[in-house]
């Protein structure tokens, strides 16, 4: 695309383009409410506007990259001094708009088929309204440039996603999950509010550029407090480890195409704000910030995958993997912060490019996995992996897409997951080689956790695929599963192709992300250790650790095809291939003898038992009357004690319970006493006021 002459792109990359983007989703939301009486119409209305909006979003983001425009828009309202509807789209925001629109596009296509399940059970209009409001909220979050406007958008996003989580009200667990989600999101929002208020106190402005201009006025201690608060608030939304409790219960509760959006994209808004705050607004970060973010990332990735391994609810397993991948993104972000503190700009660009690339990759393959999990659940009406089995033969397309997603998430070339993890590894190795003193050992620990996470993720997805798609069906529901509809398959196919395409185009995508990271960190003039040669190969460092997407894919394909052809035609061609029984020592195999997901992960749980604290519980029921030695039934239940639930959240619940009980004496039912309290309160307030 020519730089200047393309006026079509200039027209799009303008405030008008931004407004049309937001209004399309707004219209989609309101329209869905209007036509909510007719399920079919509402479903198509939602999908049409969502698809149109996300297409326009991709176009808008693309044109921003092409024309290097920065769309800025500000509507200051007179009455509230701090608040102004300020929107600002630079390359970082455009990148996140692209990620949101890409995932929303395929999820909406998938949604057409998936929402049919909810016809006549729940109101499709409401689903459409909240779905569009949710995407609108996310777009507003990444484009907002004023603190309060950002919090408003944050609330829209959180509330819309809350209503989507509790959409299937019949299941008690969903409502409870929604409840926990609501509380934690708003605790996070409170922390963010405090952080912004603290910034406002010193910089007297809520606009990000205003804050950035006066950042020097903020004393060191306050800056540290703002960092802590915003890391806490954004960490809850991103689902980092100690604050992740809501994620594994909330994401699976939502309808699958919504949990794909939530897991793929919503938790990334937390990452967006971290980048915007720590790298862009709050200037050069002190060293300990980076170390904190890096260690949180390392812990999240390792613990996330460990908990994922113990899950046998398919969507909870994927939700835990979101935590793991957020950890990997934070590894990139943390190393970028450390390098900016150590004044090594060329490594900052590498690390930030790695984090952004993994954000894009995780959005694609995680939403692909959630969508295919959704169609598996729709076919078998249960989320318990132990009830699946043999679905590869019944749901071939879903099986293939889940396989593609799993290969991408376990960072297997030629898919996109590998290249972002490769970049993160390079950033960490660069850190180990160049960072001094204590930061070095944090990098070593982070590299160890990333290496271990990679292997364990592979183990977890072998378990997921093996238990779900291979061997024989374990329940009648799995035996009668039927393949999902056309729209669902196209949605998944699109994302699978996206995974492969981004993998092949790893080099150009990384060059694009380098420009984004240059713009965010303001290091435009610096040569980065990561450079892209010949638009195909990624080269890191002067000695050139080379990796190239298309070359790997081509070589792999070539080798496998050559081997197949060699064996198939080169060797003695008259072999026959017969289908016979599975041998297994000659016993008659029924579905109970296959390995189950729990059985599969048992060895891993034993290896990490000091951390996962597995508990084994035997319950033996005997025949009392006839013969006490005759056992009627024996149930063995294995649970994993969630260490975080036990050591942080349960004491917290008890504390809050105790405090509320201690305040209970005030609630004794005497009306006059209450009026007395009001009266006394007024007097005290006025006394203090005067």
């Amino acid at each position, binding site marked *: 695309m020519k730089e200047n002459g393309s006026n079509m792109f200039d027209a799009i990359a303008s405030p008008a383009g931004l407004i049309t983007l937001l209004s399309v989703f707004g219209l989609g939301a309101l329209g869905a409410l209007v036509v909510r009486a007719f399920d079919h119409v509402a479903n198509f209305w939602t999908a049409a506007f969502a698809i149109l909006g996300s297409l326009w979003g991709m176009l808008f983001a693309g044109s921003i990259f092409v024309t290097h425009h920065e769309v800025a828009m500000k509507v200051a309202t007179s009455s509230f001094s701090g608040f102004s509807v300020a929107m600002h789209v630079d390359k970082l925001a455009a990148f996140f708009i692209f990620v949101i629109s890409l995932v929303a596009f395929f999820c909406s296509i998938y949604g057409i088929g998936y929402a049919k399940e909810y016809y006549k059970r729940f109101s499709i209009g409401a689903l459409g309204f909240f779905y569009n409001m949710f995407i609108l909220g996310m777009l507003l979050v990444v484009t907002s440039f004023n603190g309060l406007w950002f919090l408003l958008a944050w609330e829209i996003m959180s509330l819309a996603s809350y209503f989507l989580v509790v959409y299937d009200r019949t299941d008690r667990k969903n409502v409870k999950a929604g409840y926990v989600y609501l509380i934690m999101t708003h605790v996070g929002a409170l922390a963010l509010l405090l952080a912004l208020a603290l910034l406002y106190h010193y910089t007297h402005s809520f606009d990000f550029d205003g804050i950035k201009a006066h950042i020097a006025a903020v004393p060191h201690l306050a800056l540290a407090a703002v960092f802590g608060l915003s890391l806490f608030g954004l960490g809850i939304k991103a689902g980092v480890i100690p604050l992740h409790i809501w994620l594994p219960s909330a994401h699976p509760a939502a309808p699958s195409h919504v949990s794909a959006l939530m897991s793929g994209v919503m938790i990334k808004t937390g990452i967006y704000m971290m980048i915007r705050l720590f790298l862009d607004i709050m200037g050069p970060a002190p060293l300990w910030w980076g170390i904190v973010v890096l260690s949180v990332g390392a812990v999240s990735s390792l613990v996330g995958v460990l908990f994922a391994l113990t899950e046998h609810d398919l969507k909870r397993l994927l939700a835990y993997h979101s935590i793991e991948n957020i950890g990997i993104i934070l590894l990139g972000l943390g190393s970028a912060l450390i390098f900016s503190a150590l004044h090594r700009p060329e490594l900052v660009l590498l690390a930030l490019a790695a984090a952004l690339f993994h954000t894009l990759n995780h959005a694609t393959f995680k939403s692909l996995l959630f969508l295919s999990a959704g169609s598996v659940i729709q076919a078998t009406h249960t989320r318990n992996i132990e009830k699946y089995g043999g679905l590869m033969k019944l749901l071939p397309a879903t099986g293939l897409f889940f396989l593609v997603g799993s290969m991408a998430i*376990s960072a297997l070339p030629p898919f996109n997951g590998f290249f972002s993890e490769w970049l993160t590894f390079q950033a960490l190795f660069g850190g180990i080689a160049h960072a001094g003193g204590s930061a070095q050992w944090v990098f070593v620990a982070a590299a160890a956790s990333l290496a271990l996470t*990679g292997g364990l993720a592979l183990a977890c997805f072998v378990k997921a695929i093996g238990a779900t798609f291979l061997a024989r069906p374990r329940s009648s529901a799995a035996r009668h599963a039927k393949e999902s509809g056309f729209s669902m398959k196209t949605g998944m196919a699109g994302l699978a192709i996206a995974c492969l395409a981004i993998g092949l185009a790893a080099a150009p995508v990384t060059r694009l992300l380098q420009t984004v990271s240059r713009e965010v960190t303001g290091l435009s003039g610096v040569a980065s250790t990561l450079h892209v040669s010949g638009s195909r190969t990624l080269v890191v460092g002067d000695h*050139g650790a*080379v990796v190239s997407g298309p*070359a790997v894919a081509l070589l792999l394909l070539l080798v496998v095809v050559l*081997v197949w052809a060699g064996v198939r035609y080169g060797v003695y061609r008259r072999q026959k*291939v017969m289908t016979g029984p599975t*041998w*297994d020592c000659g016993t008659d195999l029924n579905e109970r003898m296959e390995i189950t997901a729990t059985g599969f992960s048992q*060895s891993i749980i034993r290896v990490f038992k000091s951390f996962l604290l597995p508990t084994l519980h035997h319950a033996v029921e005997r025949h009392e009357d006839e013969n006490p030695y005759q056992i009627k039934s024996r149930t063995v239940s294995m649970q994993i004690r969630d260490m975080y639930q036990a050591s942080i959240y349960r004491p917290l619940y008890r504390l809050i319970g105790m405090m509320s009980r201690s305040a209970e004496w005030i609630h004794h039912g005497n009306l006059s006493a209450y009026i007395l309290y009001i009266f006394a309160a007024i007097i005290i307030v006025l006394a203090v006021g005067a």
Partner: protein
Amino acid sequence: MAHYLLWMIQIALVPVVAPLGIGIINKLKARMQGRQGASILQSYRNLRKLLHKDEVIAKDASWIFRVAPFIVFGVTVLVGASIPLFSSMLHLPTSDLLMVVYVLAIGVFFLALAGMDTGSAFGGFGASREVTLGAVAEGVLIFSVLPLVILGGTTNLVVLATGVTSGYVHHLIPILLAAFGFIVALLAEAKRFPFDNPDTHLELTMVHEAMILEYSGKRLALMEWAAANKLFIFSALAVNLFFPFNLISSAGLGQVMIGVVVLLAKMLVVYVGIAVLESLIAKLRYFRLFHLLFVALILSVVAIGLVL
């Protein structure tokens, strides 16, 4: 010698010589048991016979069972061609440490899936053990090469294999420690002795054999060949990364011959070491293996500390 001829050797070396290595190990083990044992070319004969036999595929198996052998074998050939064997001029875009580890992980991925696909109990447990061991062994592998990466400044294996010689002398101890870590990772990845007994078919201990129990005919040949390739690859890496003295840089016929011979000689040492090790020690209990792997990890971290 023409460049592409060099490439032919590089590509063909691993698949051709690997079964010989397995033959040598079995011969040595038989010798140490007092038996005369099969000839070292026996594995070639087994492969040739299996390639010509018909196949029986389980009726529960899906297309993954059918495709897996080609992917697993193809992956080992690709990695074999991209690692530094005898000449430092030949490198592919895939000759990067992490790329090698993760491409081999594709092989492990499909091998484990194929193991589970037939629905037999052995395949399931074999896959679970393989993947658990693989997860930890992968970390140990990356960390044992990390000291060299820090010394060499890059993860490009060919550069590492040649670049390290310069810094070799005054980093002897960390490199030896890292070499021990790498050997442990090698034994874990190639499923040799303390981790898994390749000759036994005892349900309690077998890992690799369990997954290929349901294969027959040409697919079984490919799987066994891939296992032999994998052992060759890891021993070649061990030899060339930690004792890198033979990589030639020119393409003369004599040079190439010397390079290959020196490589095979050094590899012979590794194979003999493995055979002796398998005759001397008993196999470790499954959950004690992870203690060994974590010890190897800690040694690699110590090596990193010394190198920093």
